[in-house]
């Protein structure tokens, strides 16, 4: 009997191994297609689109089929965890590509709604996928919902009743997921969809439709309030009376908002409504008033606030909204806050001098202080992703603000995370402000001295900025345990820094008639090269110490981040090469290429073989190198001296990428 059991166990093991190998093989195929698709259309986009139609379909079909397997409780255990992560990457690629319209162009047979349904199905499946909740919401859902919402928003006006019914079905399905994830934007959008529908029906509103509309509103309220109440009950308000009050208040608020919106659409006089809103907003005692005021009210109120109020009232209302905003941050609703900033504080609204910059600045600074307090309580995953994006966006609004002024108003900012961001924003500020500066000098100056002076000052500023940042990065590297989040911060910085440098380089037109100036500029460009080299190479190596590299296989995501950095580095170098074409600084650039190449090489030197899924970012890198290689061939053939090293680099990269044996 025991013998029989042993045979059965062995047979099962053999069978399971066969299935696993089979699945692994399919992942490899998917990965190969993924890399190839990234190549597709690079050299000749039109040709790529024509030829790519079927290719994309094949990729998506296979991806969907694999998802069917990976969501099955029986088969999910047969997948290697790395393969599951890889599948996620491929899916993300597909969604990302859709957003960029590339796959949309390829797959002409699929209309918007079909596309939404397709990804909706996968997203639903994905929810049951064996990933953690945080991974899911962090990485995946915003893209998914963003996609469908954008597509639907785009098409809403052109939909007939049948299409609207389809959309409603999709919404109901998505709503189930959204409820569980508290994806507010989706729910907000649903409200707007309802409003559009209601408006649409007004032309032929009979009693039946009116009843339907009311029922729909009731359902909507349930949908809308359900997740909020769950959230409140579980995390915030324990007292049931308060909970009921909260619900009542917000239902009222919701109805009021709808009425207001409809009046807006009907272009009725709004003076009274503004007063009513102010009174209403003041009367709301719930900490959640901000949640409801943002997405729904802001698009409605923004024109009212900006067009129908005097400056004093505007500032009051802004302050009131900022209070809500602070509350939102405290409630970890940073994504709402971000949207709020985006909607409300767009630059053009304030460019006419209606609200003084000073007032705006004071409000922002107040918020900085609030955020600093609130930030310490924010969960790490929000800090790292949403938070980072929020703060970067937030501080970018301060582009024109003097750094010293900020430091005076917000003490002890130095050597803190905020300091870093402010420096970053400040660096961007200076770089932005000097964009085109040399050209301007060149155009306007009557003598060469001015031009030299301008460039010299610019470079000096740059040196100072990057010196500050370098100091900060080193401090952080020494004192903070390096993590993925910090790497992302580094990545953001490097990306921005190099792009700024590229912008700057592009503004520097060489003046062939004046060799002296040219020589001076070139010497400054040497400095830029040094700075860039530091950012690209030194920072990389310091922020990716041996300890990090030794755990190369341990975390796929971190590896991806690293490759992103390498990709950015390459991108910067490429741009630099193009920029230096005229400057004839080929040798220095080639040195830089060599150093980056050696970083990549070092991955192999240390025996860190890469698996196929890890090759994905490098596939992109190779693509870019290939593109550049083309460019070298066709555009700057006169630079023979550089061509050979580039070819060598391509060869080296291919070797370093391809020589490891896939597991």
């Amino acid at each position: 009997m025991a013998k029989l059991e042993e045979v059965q166990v062995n047979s099962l093991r053999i069978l399971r191994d066969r299935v696993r190998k089979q699945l692994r093989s399919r992942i490899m195929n998917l990965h190969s297609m993924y890399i190839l698709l990234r190549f597709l259309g690079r050299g000749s986009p039109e040709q790529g689109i024509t030829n790519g139609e079927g290719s994309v379909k094949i990729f998506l079909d296979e991806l969907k089929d694999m998802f069917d397997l990976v969501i099955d409780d029986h088969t999910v255990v047969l997948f290697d965890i790395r393969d599951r992560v890889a599948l996620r990457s491929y899916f993300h690629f597909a969604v990302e590509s859709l957003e960029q319209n590339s796959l949309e162009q390829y797959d002409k047979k699929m209309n918007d709604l079909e596309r939404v349904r397709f990804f909706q199905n996968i997203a639903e499946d994905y929810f049951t996928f064996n990933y953690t909740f945080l991974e899911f919401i962090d990485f995946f859902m915003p893209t998914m919902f963003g996609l469908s919402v954008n597509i639907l928003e785009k098409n809403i006006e052109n939909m007939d009743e049948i299409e609207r019914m389809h959309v409603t079905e999709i919404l109901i399905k998505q709503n189930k997921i959204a409820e569980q994830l508290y994806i507010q934007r989706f729910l907000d959008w649903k409200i707007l969809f309802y409003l559009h529908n209601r408006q649409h029906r007004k032309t032929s509103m009979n009693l039946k439709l009116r009843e339907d509309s009311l029922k729909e509103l009731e359902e909507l309220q349930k949908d809308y309030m359900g997740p909020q109440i769950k959230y409140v009950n579980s995390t915030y308000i324990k007292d049931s009376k308060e909970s009921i009050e909260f619900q009542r208040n917000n239902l009222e608020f919701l109805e009021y908002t709808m009425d207001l919106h409809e009046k807006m659409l009907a272009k009725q006089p709004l003076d009274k409504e503004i007063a009513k809103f102010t009174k209403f907003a003041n009367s709301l005692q719930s900490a959640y008033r901000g949640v409801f005021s943002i997405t729904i009210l802001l698009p409605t109120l923004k024109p009212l606030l900006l067009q129908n109020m005097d400056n004093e009232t505007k500032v009051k209302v802004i302050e009131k909204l900022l209070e809500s905003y602070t509350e939102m941050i405290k409630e970890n609703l940073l994504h709402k806050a971000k949207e709020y900033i985006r909607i409300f504080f767009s630059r053009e609204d304030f460019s006419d001098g209606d609200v003084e910059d000073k007032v705006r600045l004071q409000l922002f600074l107040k918020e900085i202080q609030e955020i600093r307090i609130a930030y310490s309580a924010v969960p790490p995953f929000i800090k790292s992703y949403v938070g980072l994006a929020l703060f970067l966006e937030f501080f970018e609004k301060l582009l024109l603000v003097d750094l010293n002024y900020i430091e005076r108003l917000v003490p002890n900012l130095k050597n803190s995370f905020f300091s870093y961001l402010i420096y970053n924003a400040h660096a961007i500020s200076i770089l932005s402000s000097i964009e085109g500066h040399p050209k301007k000098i060149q155009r306007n100056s009557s003598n060469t001295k001015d031009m030299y002076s301008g460039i010299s000052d610019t470079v000096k500023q740059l040196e100072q900025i990057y010196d500050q940042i370098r100091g900060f990065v080193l401090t952080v590297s020494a004192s903070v345990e390096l993590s993925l989040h910090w790497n992302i911060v580094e990545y953001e910085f490097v990306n921005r820094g190099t792009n700024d440098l590229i912008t700057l380089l592009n503004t520097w037109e060489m003046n062939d008639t004046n060799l002296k100036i040219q020589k001076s500029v070139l010497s400054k460009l040497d400095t830029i090269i040094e700075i860039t080299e530091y950012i690209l190479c030194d920072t990389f190596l310091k922020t990716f110490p041996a300890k990090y590299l030794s755990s190369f296989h341990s975390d796929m995501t971190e590896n991806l981040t690293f490759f992103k950095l390498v990709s950015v580095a390459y991108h910067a170098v490429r741009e630099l090469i193009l920029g230096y074409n005229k400057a004839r600084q080929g040798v220095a650039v080639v040195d830089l290429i060599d150093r980056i190449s050696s970083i990549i090489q070092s991955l192999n030197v240390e025996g860190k073989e890469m698996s196929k899924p890890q090759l994905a970012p490098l596939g992109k890198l190779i693509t870019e190198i290939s593109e550049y290689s083309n460019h070298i061939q066709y555009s700057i053939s006169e630079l023979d001296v550089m061509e050979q090293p580039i070819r060598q680099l391509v060869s080296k990269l291919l070797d370093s990428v391809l020589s490891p044996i896939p597991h």
Partner: protein
Amino acid sequence: MRPPYFIDLYEILQEMESLIMKDTDVGEVINERISAIIINFGEVVKAERILTRRLLQEYTNFI
């Protein structure tokens, strides 16, 4: 050991590299080749799908 239907990425990329190195209209040629390769993949993945289902059926029956 490579899976039966696996198309070697290394070979594909080598081919891409050789194309890039040639003085031809590389972009167009690459796109054509890539599309052709992926179309071939279509056949491969179909076959793999059938094989997977068969294996999974066997596996499910067994457990």
